[in-house]
């Protein structure tokens, strides 16, 4: 249930983190996820007042984010296609007229390197998408199946396999010999 008469800024603050988790998990580190996030809220601003009052805003935003993720990947592919330059250049060179390094953008970069996100990036694609749309975005398995294909049961398995892999990765990182574990030796005994 939503109230279209509340300031849109409230919607951005309330649902921005969830939409970001979905975009980040679907599109990985880099500019594309940030583009998809901004385009999602742009689209939401455009149609905001016309939404039926019974709309579940967060689920609606997650669906928009999914469409924007598809768009962003398409346009990235279009941009990359005519050139022979290596694809990784798009991550940092698409920033447009920005000059200097914004400290907040540097924070985004740090987050890209966060252990849990690195683990998400390493999941097989179907597990990663199932985790993104179901676990992080809150969409039901049936709907996620419509997005990524397969049966709801298969999506359920992919989602829980993905979560198990992430738990395992986090649990495993408690061991000092894990190369991803950056903090284990500084926190004393555990």
């Amino acid at each position, binding site marked *: 249930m939503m109230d279209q008469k509340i300031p849109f*800024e409230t919607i951005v603050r309330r649902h*921005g983190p969830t939409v970001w988790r979905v975009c980040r998990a679907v599109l990985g580190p880099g500019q594309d996820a940030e583009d998809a*996030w*901004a385009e999602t809220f742009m689209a939401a*601003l455009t149609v905001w007042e016309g939404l039926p009052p019974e709309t579940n805003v967060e689920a609606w935003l997650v669906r928009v984010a999914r469409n924007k993720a598809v768009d962003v990947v398409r346009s990235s592919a279009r941009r990359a296609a005519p050139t022979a330059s290596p694809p990784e250049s798009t991550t940092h060179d698409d920033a447009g007229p920005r000059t200097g390094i914004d*400290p*907040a953008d540097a924070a*985004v970069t740090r987050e890209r390197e966060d252990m849990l996100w690195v683990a998400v990036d390493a999941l097989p694609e179907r597990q990663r998408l199932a985790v993104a749309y179901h676990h992080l975005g809150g969409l039901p398995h049936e709907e996620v199946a419509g997005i990524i294909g397969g049966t709801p049961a298969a999506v359920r398995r992919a989602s829980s396999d993905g979560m198990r892999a992430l738990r395992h990765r986090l649990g495993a990182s*408690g061991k000092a010999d894990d190369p991803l574990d950056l903090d284990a030796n500084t926190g004393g005994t555990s």
Partner: protein
Amino acid sequence: MTSPEELTPDTFPVNDQTMKALHRRLERRAPEDGVVDISYRTLETPLGRLMLAATNNGLLRVAFENEGFDAVLNTLADSVSPRILEAPAALDAPAREIDEYFGGRRRSFDLRLDRTLSHGFRGEVHEFLPRIGYGETLSYKDLAERVGNPRAVRAVGSACATNPLPVVVPCHRVLRTDGALGGYVGGLEAKSTLLELEASA
């Protein structure tokens, strides 16, 4: 460190800096498509934090912290448009002029104003207020006469009290006939601070 069993969506880190960077991207992007009706920002002043809100037509609202910024935004969402976004860059000009005013470097404002929130007789009073010069004061009674309705002293008082653009539209320059401060949306202390500022500059 969260234990692995508690892998909830909130465990997936989204820090404040990330949200700020994403928000700025939205702020840069939104004006291009004209999808935002009201932009706002806050500004530190000697009267505490002020919130400034503007439409494409000009400055719409100046609010004191004691009014509750969220409450003010909710009212704007209801009465003007819910397409409200915090976008400081859209308010660079009013923020600069208000800053100059508090620094004693500005005596009148050269800003486009959106008078949407001023209606009827109150609107007439609000229109008149900028004619009271910097450092001058007028009584509610005199103001009622000047707007052509000498018996409407109370209505003038409530017009001043509901000025949507305090500081910029100088309702603080209106006092009681006996010289007492009367009232002020930002509190009497704010009113006397403004009057002292203008008396000393």
